[in-house]
């Protein structure tokens, strides 16, 4: 870091020095002062690479994990077999990554979408034809959603075939099944939102099935549709489920899931 600072100092040197020190020296002095200031040290925790730079040492390798909100979901060290891609196939991590992509692209789509029967389809059409990157982002959202269903499903299969649901991981397996169900529900609620023929009739098939729930069938259907049949109320209801309620719930369950992975001893051992 000091090297980079001094190099840029040479570039900026325009006779500002007091005659005794070269501009690069003055600049590195300023850099030193900034990095030892209270403001700087309050932002960057001890061991941060922005304090003393990064040199490869076991201590700094630990600090990389401990000083990052995102990375510290990991432990500092893992068993060697857990690093092998052929063991986990990255499926759980990729499911989470797809969820992040879906969140980001979904926020973008929300700027151009109104969940009413009169406007929804036209908004999607406008998004595709006259919004910069609108078509690309919608495609990404759609394909990432299908990929997430597949990757969550494959993740569940992988965990089963490794016997990784056995004690002490029974509870995390149950959480995982809930996450699979929530993923399917998120995908299904999003299916209605384009409000085209595919959406309308797929959801008609789906909600008709749920209407056959024993005892409460018609009530379940009424609650899901927001009325006797699919309409603009259904669209609003499923929109709120899709962009707010289900993501909120799935994030809570994901937090428990990741936390329990750590608490139950990390990834399970090899076969």
């Amino acid at each position: 870091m000091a090297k980079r600072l001094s190099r840029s100092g040479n570039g900026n040197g325009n006779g500002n020095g007091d005659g005794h020190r070269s501009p690069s020296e003055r600049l590195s002095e300023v850099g030193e002062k900034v990095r030892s200031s209270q403001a700087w040290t309050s932002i960057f925790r001890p061991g941060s690479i922005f304090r003393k730079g990064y040199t490869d040492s076991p201590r700094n390798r630990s600090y990389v994990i401990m000083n990052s909100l995102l990375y510290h979901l990991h432990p500092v060290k893992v068993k060697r077999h857990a690093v092998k891609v052929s063991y986990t196939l990255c499926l759980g991590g990729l499911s989470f990554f797809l969820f992040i992509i879906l969140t980001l692209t979904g926020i973008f789509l929300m700027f151009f979408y109104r969940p009413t029967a009169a406007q929804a389809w036209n908004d999607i059409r406008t998004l595709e034809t006259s919004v910069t990157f609108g078509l690309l982002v919608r495609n990404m959202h759609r394909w990432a959603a299908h990929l997430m269903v597949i990757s969550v499903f494959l993740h569940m299969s992988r965990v089963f075939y490794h016997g990784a649901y056995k004690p002490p991981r029974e509870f995390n397996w149950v959480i995982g099944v809930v996450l699979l169900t929530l993923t399917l529900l998120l995908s299904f609620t999003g299916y209605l939102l384009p409000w085209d023929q595919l959406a309308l009739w797929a959801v008609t098939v789906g909600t008709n099935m749920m209407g056959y729930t024993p005892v409460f069938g018609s009530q379940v259907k009424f609650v899901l549709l927001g009325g006797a049949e699919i309409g603009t109320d259904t669209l609003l209801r499923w929109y709120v489920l899709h962009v707010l309620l289900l993501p909120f719930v799935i994030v809570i369950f994901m937090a428990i899931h990741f936390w329990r992975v750590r608490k139950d001893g990390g990834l399970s051992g090899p076969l």
Partner: protein
Amino acid sequence: MTEVPEHLLRRSKERRAALGLPVPGEPDAGGGPAEASPAVAGDPDKIPPHLLARSQAAGAASPAPAAAAAAAGGGGTAVATAPAPVAKGPEGHTQRLLTVVKAGSIQDVRATPTDKVHVWPHLLIGEFVACMAMSAFLLVFSALVNAPLLASANYNFTPNPSKAPWYFLGLQELLTMFHPMIAGVTIPGIGIFALMLAPFSDKNPSNKPEDRKFAIALMTLFLMFWGVLVIIGCFFRGPGFNFTFPWKDGVFFDL
């Protein structure tokens, strides 16, 4: 060991000659001033003789005049006057065994060393590559293949066939065989519940494939059952949800 410089060797030789120590191992009563200690001479195997001689010589060198005078009297008195060269135990040992503590009685010795690696860089690199590969694939695929957007929703026109999303097509397939309450609610409900109960109903503690043939067979059967139903629902169902071959009548399926 490095070589001892020549001048030091020479100096040591001179010093030895001055002290009368040509052969260190042999007790020479006449030569050294404090040489004739019977206790020391009797135990030559406890401390190497040349070391003993050297330390005695060093001890004798400082109080040289007094020691020399005392040494003239006889061998017995020299013991009292010469300073003890080394602190010794009863049998000439320089340390004593106080007690023996067996490992494991007060320490918790864990004989399970785990082979661990740092998450950074070993795991994070892999995760980064996986994320980048997934992003690249998604971006390219999205640039090439458009998400379907059919005509605007129309209550008065039912597409033939109407299909649920692909992951529910297994259930829709079951609808052709069972009452909707069985196919749409009971079977998927039992399926999800059975999945949740897997760790509690599978009491087999082993996770080796050869020990859990039944569990693996059951799960494979379960997954293949759904997989086959979904594939049939996606590609082998045409107008009226009747069975067709995709290569004969085309594919009636939107993702």
